[in-house]
């Protein structure tokens, strides 16, 4: 039975690995994509037309039109089809209104600049134009119609979508997801339902990559990086981030761990609730709890967004769920024969106080950590009390 479970876990892990490999090979292919981007604004609504010289001069069939509203700066992004580009031409407005062009550049798939073009490098025609602070300003002269600005690319731009080799994809997967895949394998060993939740967390990692960051967490990350701390946000969390980065792990890894701990916390707490219902098959309980965690991973609930956002509020929510599960287990243990319920009740209160102080530490500042040490002892004692091998408690 155990061997069968190991084989299934290994097979699922290999499937996940293959899926990530396939996904990353597509992402590497996207790496060759290029976009022509610029900002344009005009005092009258109209359309902007961009021509591409692909070796035959500027032709209507090699052009793209975009509608622009009046008095609103638009970010125009045009996908460049694979092939050679010898020049660009922008016809900023199809009327005589004043206009402004800026930030002309070639970008990569995620918006990173690949090559930017100085405004003075453009040849301008018929526009009464001037260059001011990196912008081309023109138009507004009624007798001048159909202004345009052109740029010759020297050397020409060659857009090639190269398919990546297996080795490139493999090294990209190992570099970006290696540690997460190892962690996923370990979670799969906890059990099939936990493994399924691990796969869900991994799916969200790929979907939301590189995760979400609140202004608070960005501030905490910078505190961790420069080693100076202030208590506008929880110092405990910034210290934890510093330790995490010092041992060579990344924030993306932390977000994955956060999602895993959150989903497993939901499953654990749901199982502790199911322990109170005696007629449910023992084997079904982890799967029912897993079903609930999956329900909370749908768009019905904001949980997937929280679990993939590095945020003190996410940590508090995860801790709260674990507190709810552990405390519920201890309350149930109160009725076990041979346990003094008053003693157990006191220990439970100790556990509660500890958990609350941890929540406080994650939400407030460093002085609260002082009370955590003694309380850890109480909790450890509390958790080691009570029969462990009770039916229904996993």
């Amino acid at each position: 039975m155990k061997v069968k479970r190991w084989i299934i876990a290994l097979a699922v892990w290999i499937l996940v690995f293959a899926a990530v490999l396939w996904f990353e090979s597509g992402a590497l292919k996207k790496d060759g994509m290029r976009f022509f981007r610029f900002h344009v604004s005009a005092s009258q609504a109209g359309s902007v037309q961009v021509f591409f010289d692909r070796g035959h001069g500027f032709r209507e069939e090699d052009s793209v039109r975009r509608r622009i509203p009046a008095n609103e700066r638009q970010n125009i992004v045009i996908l460049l089809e694979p092939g050679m580009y010898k020049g660009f031409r922008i016809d900023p407005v199809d009327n005589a209104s004043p206009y402004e062009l800026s930030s002309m550049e070639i970008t990569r798939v995620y918006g990173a600049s690949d090559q930017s073009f100085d405004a003075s490098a453009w040849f301008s025609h018929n526009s009464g134009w001037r260059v001011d602070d990196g912008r081309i300003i023109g138009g507004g002269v009624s007798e001048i119609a159909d202004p345009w600005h052109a740029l010759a690319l020297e050397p020409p731009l060659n857009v090639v979508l190269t398919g990546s080799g297996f080795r490139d994809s493999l090294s990209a997967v190992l570099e970006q997801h290696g540690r997460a895949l190892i962690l996923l394998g370990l979670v799969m060993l906890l059990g099939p339902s936990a493994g399924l939740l691990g796969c869900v967390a991994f799916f969200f990692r790929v979907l939301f990559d590189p995760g979400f960051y609140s202004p608070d967490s960005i501030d905490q990350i910078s505190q961790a990086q420069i080693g100076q701390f202030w208590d506008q946000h929880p110092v405990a969390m910034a210290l934890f981030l510093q330790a995490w980065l010092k041992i060579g792990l990344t924030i993306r890894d932390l977000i994955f761990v956060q999602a895993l701990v959150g989903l497993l916390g939901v499953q654990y707490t749901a199982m502790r609730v199911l322990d109170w219902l005696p007629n449910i098959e023992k084997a079904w309980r982890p799967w029912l709890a897993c079903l609930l965690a999956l329900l909370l991973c749908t768009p019905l609930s904001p949980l997937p967004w929280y679990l993939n956002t590095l945020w003190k509020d996410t940590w508090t929510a995860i801790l709260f769920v674990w507190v709810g599960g552990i405390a519920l287990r201890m309350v149930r243990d109160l009725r076990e024969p041979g346990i003094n319920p008053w003693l157990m009740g006191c220990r439970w209160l100790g556990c509660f106080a500890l958990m609350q102080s941890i929540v406080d530490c994650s939400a407030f500042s460093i002085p609260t950590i002082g009370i955590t040490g003694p309380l850890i002892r109480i909790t450890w004692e509390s958790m080691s009390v009570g029969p462990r091998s009770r039916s229904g408690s996993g």
Partner: protein
Amino acid sequence: MSDLSFRVSESPLRWFGGVHAVWVGLNLLACLASLSGLIRSLRASVRECGWTWKAGSGEVIQLLSLLFLVLLPLGYAATFFVSSPARDFRYMYPSTLLMQVWALSFALGWVMDRLSKKQIDPHSR
């Protein structure tokens, strides 16, 4: 995913995961149920043993602890009724999430428990 989430947030489905009041209300009901159970159990215990330490039976202590436990998310949410720096959803989300896990797993478990009970004892009504 974000499109779906936005659609949910603009439909009545938002009451499930996007409105704290639903879960605070359920939490309040759970507190009242625990309190009434505790009072009933304490009465029975006092009737049996009088006002002695023995009246604090396992059941009474358990219900008292359960009451403390369900007060935990309610107290967390209640602090924001007293004072809140902004109207952010995130503030009360920890207590809402815990109530969602407790309430939904209890509801799901209760249905499965009834179904299992019927299978074990087909003559029970």
